[in-house]
């Protein structure tokens, strides 16, 4: 069991674009072996690469030496378009081709990761809050309700009290982790 970092990125993961979680993992490991890095595609308004992930990661690098993505495997029914991205950009200005050997489909954004490793961690959401952006300070258990499935989280200075018997409802079971590497997150097209 690994320790909960002060700051980290949380993401629910699962089947995507018609691929099973196991197949995605296998493909991403192969990409890492071939290129030394992995692009982890995602979408939605939370964790924007430039306005949220990059500044959050830079601060984490300064304060704790790095930034970890923690992934909770879930039974996802996401089945978006599978058009692969051709280019990426870390600033929205300069665009370069996706490195050969990396495939990222059905996503507008991607985290740039080191190797994805199995890692067991129980995350009590009532002890966490959003660490950047307009939702800064919002309780993680509220933020991650409904459509939002990811967040730049920090340990909360004001953990919420939860009845002993209810605690398990707020625990997220992390199964995999990966260090982010510079430029941490990119736009795709």
């Amino acid at each position: 069991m690994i320790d909960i970092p002060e700051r980290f990125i949380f993401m629910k993961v699962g089947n995507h674009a018609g691929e099973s979680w196991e197949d995605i993992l296998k493909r991403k490991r192969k990409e890492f072996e071939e290129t030394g890095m992995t692009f982890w595609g995602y979408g939605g308004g939370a964790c924007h690469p430039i306005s949220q992930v990059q500044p959050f990661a830079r601060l984490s690098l300064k304060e704790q030496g790095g930034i970890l993505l923690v992934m909770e495997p879930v039974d996802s029914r996401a089945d978006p378009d599978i058009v692969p991205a051709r280019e990426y950009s870390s600033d929205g200005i300069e665009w370069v081709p996706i490195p050969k050997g990396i495939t990222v489909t059905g996503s507008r954004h991607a985290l740039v990761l080191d190797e994805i490793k199995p890692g067991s961690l129980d995350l009590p959401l009532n002890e966490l809050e959003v660490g950047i952006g307009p939702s800064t300070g919002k309780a993680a258990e509220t933020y991650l309700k409904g459509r939002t499935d990811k967040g730049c989280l920090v340990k909360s200075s004001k953990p919420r009290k939860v009845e002993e018997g209810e605690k398990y409802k707020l625990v997220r079971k992390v199964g995999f982790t990966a260090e982010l590497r510079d430029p941490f997150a990119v736009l795709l097209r």
Partner: protein
Amino acid sequence: MSVDFRACLYALSDVIINRPKPLRHFDQIYMKLPDMLLQAELISRWFDGKSVLFIGDGDAIGLAVTHLAALELLPGRPQHITVLDFDERVVNSVNRFAEDYGESDWIRASLYNVADALPKDFWHAANAFYTNPPWGASNNGSSVKAFIERGIEGVQADALGCIVIGDHPSYQWTHEVQVATQNILLEAGFRVAEMLPEFHRYHLDDDPELTSCSLIVQRQTDTLDDSYTSRPLSAEHKANFYGSNSPLLVQYVRDPTNGGKLASRDVTLERLETTNND
């Protein structure tokens, strides 16, 4: 004055569909329709007869006020609105709409980035300013400061202002930014004339409950040093513009469609398959 809600909503629908797609990259997060109507009504009353300088206006409040007033759906109307925005899509959308509806005498938009000194033409020229800046959740309002200061540079001695910033009881940062904002305004001689708390909501998919306030401010003085002193933002200010470690890197967002006159690159068309029976 009675309000014809249906007519107001029809008019606002036209304004909303004219807004370019928001770019979260720059914290462009648009206000929701009901709050746009209330905000337009507020501005039309406070800024009645004034020349107003908007520092950024992705929400299209300037256009909403202009259009609703042109249709005589609001109690008052600004004499003229100038919108300055670094997004050419916003600038083109405002000017195109105004031309299409014959409202160009009342509103005009120009390209401008708050990182640059305020152009001399706008220096101390307006009677009122308006801004709904990036709210500065992670930098205690550095971006807010830049937008407000440009607004203050753009108005005369006797002036009004409207600042729209985050305001939610669950978010301590919104209150911290409000304190920083009021300090900037007090230093420039403005007092808070009206404050409408938790007044607007936004199309913010990961936090739709987040609200903002309208802060109406007023300065009543006869004298103002008129020497031009606007300066570009410092490198340090730009380095943390959107938040700590979140710099301002973009001069302008360009509009490859030239206000919709050229083809959009957002879609591709696929030919309908034909068979021998067709």
